[in-house]
């Protein structure tokens, strides 16, 4: 990359001022090749950071604290290890890609039961996120110190590191998001006109992967399509060419969506099962609304407050302030040019979360919510790369302003100085501020970091069930286990550490109903709640085994309670009566 702007690099095409301004920075960045120096080392750094976090959480026993993390591992393993194996085990509650990524790794019982299968996937995803963010910052023409600052702000985040040690789906989403945006940036700022196929490969496919990961990626596809259309029109390519490029970008996502809809139709008989089924997010939201707890619905102010608090406790005040600086400088200096449009793509998921909260499609609970609590705050992790990039841009602009030696041409081209001492000093300041912030967080993580707080809350909630699961793992002697793993706090298959085909669960299909009707002929062991689950978010949260057997005197005559903790009981059949 060069620092000096040649007159030929300044786009002097006759046209709208905005078009000239928009294109000029792209040519002026000097990045003329797809290869971006530092991509591989940054990828490895991201993987290493996640690996270190995984080592810690594995040692501390906290990588399986989130119930959803255990559920994702279980869904992946059930595809092959089940009395009713098949892709139908992907279900409709969550989008399928994270489970498909886990599939090869969970074939190892050790990787499955320790949760390390998820750690491996998430670590690779964090590496990809880091590399993609790095490439994006490079495409935006940021100086090296600013890029390093952005990387520090991203990889030093404890919440992100924790989640990247688990089997949660947020790391996969972040990887898809950042790879999509980096791909779009590469297309938008390439001095060479890229083909529609290249656009589809480098941006469309990551977007499609995001579409099959979490619903927050769906608005990114729309925003990306808008970007492609605007950029291509600005280049004077005409409506037809713009449409071709736009379609090149969105077609993979459309295919993905159609596949998902088709899957729901084939497996569940309802193409919109994922939207309105009994296990869907909207079903859960309905329960919260019925109980008067979905207070963000229809209230933009409260939704903003809750989302803002989640971002504060997840991203941190340092990142938010620096990102605000970047927002100001980009608005002033970059205005509506391509660089700003690309940067703003990262905010599409946050905008979607705010929209989703306000329309009551999902719930998020933290100290700012009414009533307060800790639930679903990790969703805001999707904003981290965007905020990190904004912060890096802000630092670059501030550093440039502090630097005395700039040519007027460079100013006209909006070029950012590189390698100046001011940037280095600012980088040092970012490192110090990040360390101090992390020390503050780690002083009381259960109160100051909502993602960690929620993990801890779930850790405590699962204590009894996990104790029972470990006991069963140690004492199981074959013969099958009847257990409904769907109720709240019951999805503990990794902790059970037993082949899933030993279990009769809802995922087992029709044989589950048979086993409930005739446990004596199916299962030597029964794991159930001794009294029915109360306070379930939905009716699907009731323990069907409990409903059938808890008050059955025949059952209690033919099975012996061999372990009990709180309201959980493990029963073993009385031999000779089977």
């Amino acid at each position, binding site marked *: 990359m060069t620092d000096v702007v040649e007159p030929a690099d300044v786009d002097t095409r006759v046209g709208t001022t905005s078009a000239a301004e928009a294109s000029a920075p792209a040519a002026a960045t000097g990045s003329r090749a797809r290869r971006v120096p530092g991509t591989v080392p940054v990828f490895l750094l991201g993987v290493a950071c996640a690996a270190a976090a995984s080592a810690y959480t594995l040692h501390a026993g906290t990588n399986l604290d989130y119930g959803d993390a255990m559920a994702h591992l279980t869904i992946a393993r059930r595809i092959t290890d089940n009395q009713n194996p098949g892709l139908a085990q992907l279900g409709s509650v969550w989008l399928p890609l994270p489970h498909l990524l886990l599939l090869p790794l969970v074939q190892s019982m050790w990787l499955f039961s320790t949760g390390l299968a998820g750690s491996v996937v998430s670590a690779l995803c964090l590496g990809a996120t880091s590399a993609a963010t790095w490439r994006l910052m490079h495409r935006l023409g940021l100086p090296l110190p600013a890029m390093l600052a952005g990387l520090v702000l991203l990889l030093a985040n404890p919440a992100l590191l924790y989640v990247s040690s688990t089997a949660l789906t947020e790391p996969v989403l972040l990887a898809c998001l950042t790879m999509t945006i980096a791909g779009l940036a590469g297309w938008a700022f390439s001095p060479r006109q890229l083909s529609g196929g290249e656009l589809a490969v480098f941006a469309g496919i990551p977007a499609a992967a995001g579409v099959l990961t979490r619903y927050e990626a769906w608005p990114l596809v729309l925003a990306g399509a808008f970007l492609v259309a605007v950029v291509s029109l600005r280049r004077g390519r005409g409506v037809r060419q713009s449409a071709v490029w736009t379609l090149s970008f969105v077609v993979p996502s459309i295919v993905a969506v159609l596949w998902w809809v088709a899957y729901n139709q084939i497996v569940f008989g309802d193409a919109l099962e994922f939207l309105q089924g009994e296990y869907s997010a909207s079903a859960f939201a309905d329960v919260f609304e019925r109980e008067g707890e979905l207070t963000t619905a229809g209230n933009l102010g409260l939704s903003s407050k809750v989302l803002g608090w989640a971002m504060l406790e997840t991203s941190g005040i340092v990142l938010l302030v620096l990102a605000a600086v970047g927002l100001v400088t980009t608005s002033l200096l970059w205005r509506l040019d391509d660089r700003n449009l690309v940067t703003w793509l990262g905010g599409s998921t946050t905008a979607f979360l705010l929209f989703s909260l306000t329309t009551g499609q999902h719930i998020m609970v933290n100290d700012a919510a009414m009533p307060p609590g800790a639930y679903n705050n990790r969703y805001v992790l999707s904003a981290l790369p965007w905020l990190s990039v904004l912060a890096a841009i802000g630092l670059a602009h501030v550093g440039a302003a502090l630097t005395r030696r700039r040519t007027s*041409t460079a100013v006209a081209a909006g070029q950012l100085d590189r390698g100046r001492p001011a940037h280095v000093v600012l980088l040092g300041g970012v490192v110090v501020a990040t360390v101090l912030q992390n020390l503050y967080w780690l002083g009381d993580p259960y109160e100051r970091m909502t993602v960690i707080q929620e993990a801890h809350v779930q850790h405590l909630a699962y204590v009894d069930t996990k104790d029972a699961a470990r006991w069963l793992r140690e004492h199981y002697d074959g013969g099958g286990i009847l257990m409904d793993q769907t109720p709240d706090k019951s999805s503990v298959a990794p902790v059970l550490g037993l082949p899933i085909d030993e279990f009769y669960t809802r995922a087992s299909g029709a044989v589950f109903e048979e086993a409930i009707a005739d446990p004596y002929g199916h299962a030597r062991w029964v794991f159930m709640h001794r009294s029915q689950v109360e306070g379930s978010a939905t009716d699907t949260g009731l323990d069907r085994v409990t409903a059938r057997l808890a008050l059955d005197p025949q059952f209690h005559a033919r099975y012996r309670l061999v372990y009990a903790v709180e309201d959980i009981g493990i029963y073993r059949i009385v031999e000779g009566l089977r």
Partner: protein
Amino acid sequence: MALRTKRAAACRADARPVYRRPACRRGVAALLATGLGLAALVGPGAGSSAADEIPVPQSLSTGGTLSNTIRIPVPAGTTARRVLATLVVDTPEGGGAEDGAVAIRMGDREVRRVSADRAKRRMVLPVTADLVDDDGSVSISARYLPGDGRGCDSVLGGVTVSLTDIVLDFTGREQRPTTPGTFLPDLVNTVQVVVPDAPSSDVVDAALTAVAALAGRYPAPTKVEVVRPTGVEDQAYPGLRVVRIEEGSASQLTSVSAPGGVPTLTVSGSGTALSDAARALGSDGLKLSSAARVTDLDLTEPASDPDTELTLADFGPTTIGLGGWGVSRAYVGLAQDYFGGPVDSMTLDLSGVHTPADGITSHLDAYVNDRLVASTVLDDDPELEMTIDVDRASMVAENGLELVLTTLPPEGTCRLADGRGIPVTLEIDGNASTISATRGTGSVSGFGMFPQVLGHDLPVAMRDTAATGGVDQVRLAGQVVASLQRAAAAPLDVRVVGADELVDGTDSGLLVGATTGDTDALGAPLRLDRMRLVDFAEQEFGMGDGSPFAALQTVVDGGRAVLVLGSWSDGGAGATTLMSSLGSTVSGGWRNLREDLLVATPAQDTPFLVSTDSVLPQDAEIEESRDFMWWIVGGAAAVVLLVLLGYLVLGRRDREIRDLVRAQERSETEEV
């Protein structure tokens, strides 16, 4: 005496293990029951023996082989016949002791000795003339005497003997007081403070001041209440007193016997002098007045000194004595209110002396709020120094220090007949022992913040002081004031203020008859509006959406705490009567209130305590959050403005520079 009364007051609040403090829970419950039933027992015109009985607020409790004594004053002009009491023998295992006996003494002789094997029995102790002391009181004490058979086991077992639910049975007509000095005896059943139907603020101020003064003077179960003229007792019964507050030209106290023989004291005056006169009702100096009519009585309490450095003696005991074989215990209440404000940690430096151990195994353990915090083995060095730190997590509103001395003779037997060795005797010097505290609310919240958060200053506001239908807010305020005073360590300076003044101000205080607007203005956790509880609480208390309710809650608004009492019903009427049941519950003792919300609904016979966390967000709260959206709107607008500014200012410069570059290029091209 100070130790025992303070102990009784402190024990009243907290539910402690029975074997440690058996007097507290049962005593309070029994006394409350006695108090609540008092109107039936001693109602006007009741000529039965119940009319010749008066409950005694004190109780006694003793651990190990120590004795404890209380004095029961006999109403002037009457003859004591019997003392009725419940004897409770408690052990860590529950139930009575395996052997041994309980000796009860009255005056200077033992009047009864019973086996200690029964956990509880009702005792009837005849009182003869020789048992009455010269000051007209009857002293009573109890002591456990371990049996010879079990040795130290029975003593070490921590047998505790208590006398609770004490009632004095007497004959004769109580001598009618004729002077202010004799108007308020040591033992009183009920004091009614009468306010007119449409009182002025001066009269209300004076009435509530009188309630506070009388509640501080007479512990529960003596009833101190505000009544309207139609609610005054018209027939005398033992221990009944009536105080009338009237506006007059000068402050004076007049002792008058009303028709029916009900002793009535009229306090009249104007302005602050009326309240000053009412405050004198709590002063012992009132006894010095022998005139039938006293004028210009002016008692202005000095401002309490909110010190964070006190001695143990400031909490009651000038000396704490422990000794004897086995286990002996002493308890001291350490209410935060003694420090004139909330504190969140304390350091106790206990200083004392003890007899040499001389081969005897003896150790002193200190418990704070039932947690062992310090322990020391006593040796031949007579000096005793013990430092105890009570941290934030351990602090409650009414803390308790219990000292337990355990002493074993060399051979391990505690049989007194053996006469082996001399047990250790220990004394803690209350004046030399200090307690230092640090200001802060700590983890104490809700009702537990009171009364210490007031700093002995209690502004009271009422929306309606007239005796309108539904509820008497002045009476309600009086019930809360009395309850707070009995939980306080010093007299409360009660003053009536305007409701809007309290709501908009910065002082902690009490608001009675709050409206929906008041709770909105205060940002109360429970707005007086449609309310729902979380599902499990809703099922437990039978409260659905739209149910009318009355509530007493603690509102923390900035740095102050306000008690808010109000009601709500759909349609705006019909829930005010529920507020009366809140007052009755509060009268049962402030330390019985847990959490931060007391709610009365038609579905529940008695009000229930619940946390405001169990209240689902109400519409008013949610609506207030709606304003936050302007931050989003403002932020988006700011970004748009910045972009426009960029175009206007920087864009113009960029175009000029670009034009310059183009001109340069053209000139270069032309040169070529």
